[in-house]
């Protein structure tokens, strides 16, 4: 699973942020201050132009003081009344049609989604969650952008604003009302999609009797049977049975089956582990280059996407993860094997084909960062992009051929442990990013994880509603919708948008890109120095400043989405959930205040 930005602990994210950036709270107040100053300046310019400088100042002063007073006078009863009205309005606007569309999507999805996919759960989960996201955001957009303009058009707003209703209550009431409607829709979609995924992927197999072979121990006594299952749902499993005829169908296509004895035959039960919620504990990744010199990154294999960097095979190049707080409580012991469970994703880059589909050999070692004690090399086979789950045995042999205990000898006094991975084949490369190796804590509940993903969709929905309602306080329905759509689209591509604003993307700013487009110039070469180029870059400087300002308030929808966690079978970290909820609250509060002033300073009648 790709995790481009590190998920910071909630409190660190809230107050101090990552190194070199600000925490969420100081950032919120700084942006609010900036918006306040901009609003004051703009408000004064408009008021002064209309009413003269003195009266303009008086109007701005009164608007601010009245605004603060009225925001403090917000009545929950009035907000709730307006929220109920918004809910009834949504119901009248046949919002339930969204559910019908969703159910139709589910019905047809089962026709087109491939169950012979290597990881069908990933395909199904990402499909239903993506469909839910787009559908819910669409509904949120339509409800929020057209509601208030509808009231202005039918003039029903006259009977509201002539009551002691504060403008902020109108904005907040609509936002809450539509949020409740969206929440009900999401809940129904969540339940039906969860059932859909489980029912679609659930299957069983028969044991292929002809494949069963006896397994004997050292004394030549039969201890069970090995074999395989029949081909069902486009795959089969290897099976291991004991003398009672019970056992397991081994992991394939991301799941296993339990085999029990019923009567005189062994029965394969339903699939287990189709939906998982692995709980990873991530470490810090550093590298050694081919000469064994420490580096922050591995080498580039030419990919434009710099998320992963690579170690070259059969050299000293090594990827090193350092984990903190390691102790024996993390140990897994099922009686047969004991050790520290890890998960490993390797991207394999081949410079020669070899045998297609054949795994590339690598090695794992653990090392005590304090004493330098290193275990002997444990080889493993890596298939590209597949999650490899294994145990680092508790009893390990050191490079000095002595036996050591993983937790006592390889963990430093400060609780640190290093895990080192190398590629052993010349001319082949292993690519890693920090989240590609993790310690596996006990799995969380997949159902709870599914709920967390729905919570992140809910957060996106609430933000869209808040933007739509705020925009609709001054814009007509279609324009408010376009404005909100722009926000959503830019929000989904925020990192790129910020990159263009900062000049880190190829092709320059908007004007330069347009110029390159119409003159068919590629995006890499520099513009020749000329008056036109100077003018273009000057215009872009203005645009980039505007874009950078806009980026400060642009919600990063791509970061808010946690679909990838569920699709790849990872637990959504609690820190991520808290951050999303906090961000949602900040947007709702901020936009309600902005909406208040926009609605308060416009004429309701025509």
């Amino acid at each position, binding site marked *: 699973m790709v995790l481009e930005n590190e998920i910071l602990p909630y409190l660190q994210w809230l107050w101090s942020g990552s190194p070199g950036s600000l925490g969420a709270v100081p950032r919120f107040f700084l942006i609010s201050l900036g918006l306040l100053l901009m609003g004051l300046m703009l408000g004064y310019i408009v008021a002064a132009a209309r009413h003269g400088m003195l009266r303009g100042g008086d109007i701005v002063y009164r608007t601010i003081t009245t605004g603060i007073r009225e925001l403090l006078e917000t009545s929950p009863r009035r907000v709730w009344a307006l929220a109920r009205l918004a809910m009834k309005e949504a119901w009248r606007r046949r919002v339930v049609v969204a559910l019908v569309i969703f159910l139709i999507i589910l019905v047809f999805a089962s026709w087109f989604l491939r169950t012979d996919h290597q990881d069908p759960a990933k395909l199904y989960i990402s499909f239903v969650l993506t469909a839910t996201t787009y559908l819910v955001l669409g509904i949120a957009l339509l409800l929020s952008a057209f509601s208030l303009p509808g009231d202005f058009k039918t003039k029903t707003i006259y*009977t509201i*604003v002539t009551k002691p209703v504060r403008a902020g209550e109108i904005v907040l009431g609509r936002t809450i009302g539509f949020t409740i409607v969206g929440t009900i829709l999401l809940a129904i979609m969540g339940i039906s999609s969860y059932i859909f995924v489980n029912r679609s992927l659930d299957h069983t197999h028969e044991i292929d009797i002809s494949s069963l072979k006896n397994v004997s121990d050292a004394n030549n006594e039969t201890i069970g049977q090995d074999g395989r299952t029949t081909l069902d749902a486009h795959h089969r499993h290897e099976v291991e049975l004991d003398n009672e005829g019970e056992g397991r169908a081994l992991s394939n296509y991301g799941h296993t089956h339990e085999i029990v004895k019923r009567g005189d035959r062994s029965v394969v039960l339903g699939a287990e582990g189709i939906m998982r919620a692995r709980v990873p504990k991530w470490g810090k990744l550093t590298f050694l280059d081919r000469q064994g010199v420490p580096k922050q990154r591995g080498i580039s294999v030419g990919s434009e996407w710099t998320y992963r960097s690579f170690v070259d095979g059969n050299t000293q190049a090594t990827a090193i993860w350092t984990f903190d707080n390691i102790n024996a409580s993390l140990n897994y012991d099922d009686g047969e094997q004991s050790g520290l469970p890890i998960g490993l994703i390797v991207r394999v880059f081949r410079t020669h084909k070899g045998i297609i589909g054949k795994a590339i050999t690598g090695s794992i070692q653990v090392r005590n960062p304090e004493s330098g004690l290193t275990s002997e090399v444990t080889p493993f086979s890596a298939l590209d992009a597949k999650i490899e789950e294994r145990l680092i045995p508790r009893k390990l042999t050191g490079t000095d051929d002595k036996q050591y205990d993983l937790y006592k000898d390889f963990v430093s006094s400060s609780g640190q442990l290093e895990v080192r991975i190398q590629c052993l084949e010349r001319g082949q490369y292993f690519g890693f990013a920090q989240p590609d190796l993790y310690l596996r804590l006990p799995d969380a509940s997949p159902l709870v994880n599914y709920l967390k993903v729905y919570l992140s969709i809910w957060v996106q929905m609430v933000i869209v509603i808040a933007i739509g309602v705020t925009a609709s306080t001054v814009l007509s329905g279609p324009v408010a919708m376009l404005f909100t759509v722009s926000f959503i689209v830019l929000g989904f591509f925020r990192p790129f948008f910020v990159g263009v604003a900062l000049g880190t993307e190829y092709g320059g700013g908007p004007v330069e890109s347009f110029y390159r487009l119409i003159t068919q110039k590629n995006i890499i070469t520099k513009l020749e120095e000329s008056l036109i180029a100077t003018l273009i870059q000057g215009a872009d400087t203005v645009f980039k400043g505007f874009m950078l300002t806009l980026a400060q308030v642009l919600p990063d929808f791509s970061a808010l989405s946690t679909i990838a966690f569920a699709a790849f079978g990872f637990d959504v970290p609690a820190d991520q959930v808290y951050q999303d909820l906090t961000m949602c609250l900040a947007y709702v509060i901020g936009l309600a205040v902005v909406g208040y002033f926009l609605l308060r300073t416009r004429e309701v*009648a025509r």
Partner: protein
Amino acid sequence: MSDDIVIQTRALGKVYRDFWGRQKVRALKPLDLEIHRGEVFGLLGPNGSGKTTTIKLILGLLFPTEGEALVFNKRATDVSKNERIGYLPEESYLYRFLNAEETLDFYARLFDMPAETRKERVDALIKMVGLDKARKRQLQEYSKGMTRRIGLAQALINNPDLILLDEPTSGLDPIGTREMKDMILRLKEEGKTVVMCSHLLADVQDVCDRIAILHQGELKELGRVDTLLTVADVTQIRGRNLSVECQNEIRDVIARHQGELMEMANPSTTLEELFLSIVRDSEARPGRRANVETTTSA
């Protein structure tokens, strides 16, 4: 501003502008007005004279281009003044997917009324406007008269001290019109201040204590209705059962005193009175042809 004055406008003016800020139309020229507690005040004028604009400025639905409006000594843009105001717009702009009960409950909530008070008030108002049997019907099924009545009920939900009625009898049949006028007089008896704007002169004359006549956004006349309508040099004598001799004698007396007899005839009733008499008779004796003395004076 004394406590007796409910509404005061000081050089209140409104200019409508286009997107570029250019003047489109001057809807109201500087208007100075004082409306006192407990009076029924009428804003009169033809369409486009600035009546509705004045009401909207007083309510804060529009912002003045110049001057200001004070209501209960507060600026028109101050939301808290709405606690004591009831407003019936020109057309009842209500949510048509709600029924009567839901509509009134919704507006009562906007006044932050507790549940019990809300229920009592909604019940009383639904009965008062005669919609008890239609209380569960959605407003989209209502006739125009019924919509108007529920509109009036929402305007009174907070038992306001000041009621602003924009064309209150518009769309009402004669019975509805009479009921509306009776309602206005009843509100006046309760000590409320009523401001209504209308171009139906008879309605205004029947209920208003004072009127302001607007034309092309300008105040043309302001004063008490009885004073404005009194014709100082004409004397009206009304009598019953006068014989022809008596009438001739009256003519002689007028001639002797160099007066001019303008008219001596049997008066006719108004069409409104006739209509209402017929309806009352029909309700009293259903299924029978109306028997109304057309010569009966009101």
